[in-house]
Structures are given as C-alpha cells and as structure tokens.
C-alpha cells in the first residue's frame, strides 16, 4: 500500500536527521561539511523522489527539478575559482 512507502521514507529521514546531529560532534575536520552536505543531499533526494513523487508522468519533471541545483554548481564553482586563487585578502 502506498502509505507504507511514505512512512518508511519518513522514518529514514528521521534517522538521517539523527545521524547528522551525531556526526556534527565527530572530530573529522574538513570532512565535516562534506558529511553534512552528503546527508542533506540524501534527504533532499528522498523528499523529491518520494514525497514530491518525481517518478511518474510527465518525466520532464526531473529536468526542472534538477535544473536549479545543477545551475548552482556554476555560481559556486566559478566564483570559487576567484576566491580560491586570491592572495593577500585582508581579514575582517
């Protein structure tokens, strides 16, 4: 039955929430943002695929759903090309 699918997804989401809080206190240095981002992306994927019912007609939904996230890669990535290669930036 459909409702079961949503309940399972909800339970998984709560587990991931707990995981994110637990891992926040682990001393993993530069991997911390990576872990948090990875958990957030997983949760977002569950929301889009299960709760927003992405699979199904029309399949064009996938393109629009992904477009915003995909486009952010350009904003972040190309801007970081500047921030990562600057030198002598005065600290506030």
């Amino acid at each position, binding site marked *: 039955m459909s409702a079961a699918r949503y309940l399972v997804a909800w339970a998984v989401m709560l587990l991931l929430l707990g995981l994110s809080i637990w891992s926040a206190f682990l001393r993993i240095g530069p991997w911390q943002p990576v872990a948090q981002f990875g958990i957030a992306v997983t949760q977002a994927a569950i929301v889009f695929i299960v709760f927003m019912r992405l699979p199904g007609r029309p399949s064009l939904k996938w393109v629009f759903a992904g*477009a915003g996230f995909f486009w952010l890669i350009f904003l972040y990535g190309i801007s970081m090309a500047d921030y990562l290669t600057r030198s002598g930036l005065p600290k506030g």
Partner: protein
Amino acid sequence: MTTLTADLPASYLTKEQTIASWLLTTDHKRIALLYFASITAFFFIGGFAATLIRLHLVNPAGTLLQPDMYNRMFTMHGIVMVWFFLIPSIPNTLGNFLVPLMIGAKDLAFPRINLASWYVFNLAGLFVLYFLFMGGVDTGWTFYTPLSTHYANGYVVAAAVAVFINGFSSIMTGLNFVVTIHRMRAPGMVWMRLPLFIWAIYATSAVMLLATPVLAMTLFLVGVERTAGVGIFDPALGGDPLLFQHMFWFYSHPAVYIMILPAMGVVSELIACFARKPIFGYAGMTYALMAIAVIGFFVWGHHMFTAGISIYSAVVFSLMSFVVAVPSAIKTFNWTVTLHKGRITFDAPMLYALGFVGLFTIGGVTGLIVATVALDIHLQDTYFVVAHFHYIMVGGTVSAYFGGLHYWWPKITGRLYSEMLARFAALLTFLGFNLTFFPQFILGYLGMPRRYYAYPPEWQVWHVLSSAGASILAVAYVLPLFYLGWSLFRGERAGANPWRATGLEWRTSSPPPAHNFARAPLVTSAPYAYNPEDGSAIAQDGAHV
C-alpha cells in the same frame, strides 16, 4: 475604441470593449497590448533621461545638470531601460502575442499568471515612479557596494524593491513560456519544426528563470544591509564588495542575453520572409541559441577584470567570453548566407533586420575587444564599453523590436502602416544610431571615463557628434508613433497574410479571433518553406501562401 475597430470583423479586439474586459483579460493577445502600453511609457521615461544626458554632455564643463543630478539621470536611464523596457520588450509584447499563435495553441499554459505578471510589472513601475519623483538614486544601475549600501544618499532601497518586484514579473513570464512551449504545441509541431522565434523565446525564458532569483537575493541583501546597517558587503565590517559583484553579474550578464536572444529570434523570422528563403542552417541556429543561453552564464567576471578578482579567474572568464562569441558569430554568418541568392525585398521590417545584423556585428566584435583582459585594463569603465553595449542593446535589440513591431503590426491590429514613412524611419534609425554611438568608441579609446559629468575640452567634438546623432535617433524613434498610430484609424485593412509568410500565426485572420484558430492546426511543414526562385511559400500547416 470603437473607431479603431469599426470596420474590422469580429476578433480579439472587438470581442468585448469595456475597460474591465481589458484590465481583467486572460487573453494573451490583449495582455501583450497591455504590456506594450507599459513598456512604451517606460521607453519614453528612459529616453527622457538619455536626452538630458546628451544635452548636458555637449558642454565640457557640464553645466546643464548638477553633478549629483547627472548621476541620478544615468542611473534612472539604466534602471528604466534595462528592466522596464529592454528585458520585457520583445518577450512580453511580441512573445505574449505570438507564442500561442506560432505553436498552434489557444493560449498560454497559465493565462491568469500572465495577467498577474503585468500587474506585478506595473507595481514595480510604481516603485520606480516613487523613487524618481522623490529625487532618484545615484549609484548607477549596477548598485555597487558599499556605495549603494552605505554612502549613497538617494532612494536605493526603493529602487532595489522596484527591481526585485520586476524580477517576479520576469519569472512568471519565463515560467509560462517554458511550460507552454513544452506542452501545448499543436499536433505535428515537433521541436525541430518550431520557428526560431519560439526557440529564442524558450532560451530567453530559461535564462530568465535561472538568473533572476540570484539578482533577487542580491538586491534583498543590499536592502537589508542598507536598512539595518549590517556588514554583508561592507569591508569595514568584514564583508566583501566583490561578493556583491559576483552575485550581481551572475544575473546581469545573462540579462544581456535575455535582451538579445529574442531579438535574434525576430531577425530570423524577418530575414527568411523578406529573402523568401529558408534560414540557412536551421539546426545550427537552434543549437547556437541554446549555447548562447548556457555559456552566457559562465562569463560574468568580465565585468570585474579591474575590480580585484584573481588573475587566474580573469583568464577563465576571458576565455569563456571568447567562446560565447562563437555561436553569435555562427548566427550572423547564417543570416548572411540566407541572404545570398535570396529574393530580397527591402520592406521596413527587412531594413530593421539588416540594420540589426550590421550593428550587432560591430557590437559583438567590440565585445571581443573588451573581453581581452589586457585591453580591458585600458577600456574598462570608459565610453568604449558604453558604445559596445549600446550597439548590442539599442542597435541590436531595439532595431529588432521595431522590425518585429512593423512585421506583425498587420496581424496584431488588422491594419497596414505607411511603408514609405516606415522605411524612412528605419534608415533614419540606422544613421542616427551610428552617429550617436560610433564617436563613443573613439571617446573611450581616448580615455574618457563613463559616468563623468564633465570632461577635457579637446574631446568636445565627439560629444557634439554623439548628441547630434541622438537628436536624429529621437526623431526616428518617435516617428513610428505617428504613422503606426495613424494606421489604427485610417490604415488599409490587412489580410490574413500580407507578407505571404509561412508561420502559423499568418494562417488565421488579422486580427485573430479570441480563441486564435477556427480549427486547431495540424503542422506538416518545416518552418521557412520559402522558395527564392519564384517567391512562393508553404505555410507550416501545408497551405500554399
């Protein structure tokens, strides 16, 4: 209103003529006319600012306007022209009118959102009028921080709010077009049979949707910083002014493609029709449109070469700026090749289209010049840049807009305009434009900075030439008001297809009925099935025209 429609058969114009039926319409064709009224008003407001600027600059000492007022003038000119004229011009007037007709649909996907977008646009316009009458803004249309957030003494927040709200109108429009083009094409209208105008509107809409939200957030942060006095972009409090510029230009460079892509779409329609020849390299033209839209997002740093970004990122942005020129060049070559061995007639729309090709080429080539980092060190913030972007936006977009307006005027109004006066206006535009803006390349090369209210007297001759050209351009832009307006009352009745063109929009009456087509069209023919040998053509539904 009844005089205008007196001898016209039943159409979207005659259906109902109360004010409420116009202000509450959901008919995309009426909404197009509502937008036409709004943007024409803003065109004259922005043009008024330009007039004052050019009058002021005739004199090297700059005495017509006070310095602070001069700053407010070029800011008003920029804000009004960019967001309240150029960006909505072709998409919201010609696009709104033609997209459903060209694809064989009854209306857009979301007609009420379409109407709402016009009200949102005018709400933004009210904020513009507010800050104009309250005394203006002096930061330039680019709102650079920390000038805009801490030191400017004008109505920055009101201007930011105006642009923020205007952005919603853009997003609503783009959303409507994208979904409509995907889902509401008539049977047989597959993607590779779509007119290039539709492809151009699609590419434009994608850019509107992906870029505008970032501008919205940027202006929101500027508003918060100015109002609350916190240091998001202020170096004194830890902020980075370049972060503002990155975010601002991430939108504002694609914005210039929002302004030029629809114009390119119009030009393809005009050249095919008046050369009686299919556009050369149709598939390449569609890829070029999409390539410009996408690559246009990777070049924004070329506005920041001298602002303090790292030299490595400058190289990346410069390279990408060269790459984005390639699809534009491909389009220019293809238009030119289309003309070769065509059966060319020089009707007014064609004159505007040919003017576009020449002026866009100059604008594009000078774009490559400023995209070269070494040259930009000298040319950044000079009149060279001013001339470059006016060649594209005015020589390009405005020429195409006027060309499209003339071309589809019979369809929209059911009337023919005076061809003689129209050709004269088109030629006057080309001459006036070049006289106005070519001297500005020279001024920039000589080193005259932009946004300066006074300059050394040895440069006066160039400014005088430019201002003289501006007066000619003004006549050329005002003239159509008269003969187009006159045609509404006394113009000859237009038939369904006075240009014998191939688009679906020409297969219904002029003006069209409210529901667009008597019967839903079935598309069987590629676009632009013109035969230059004898000038015959086949419309997209298979009929001989």
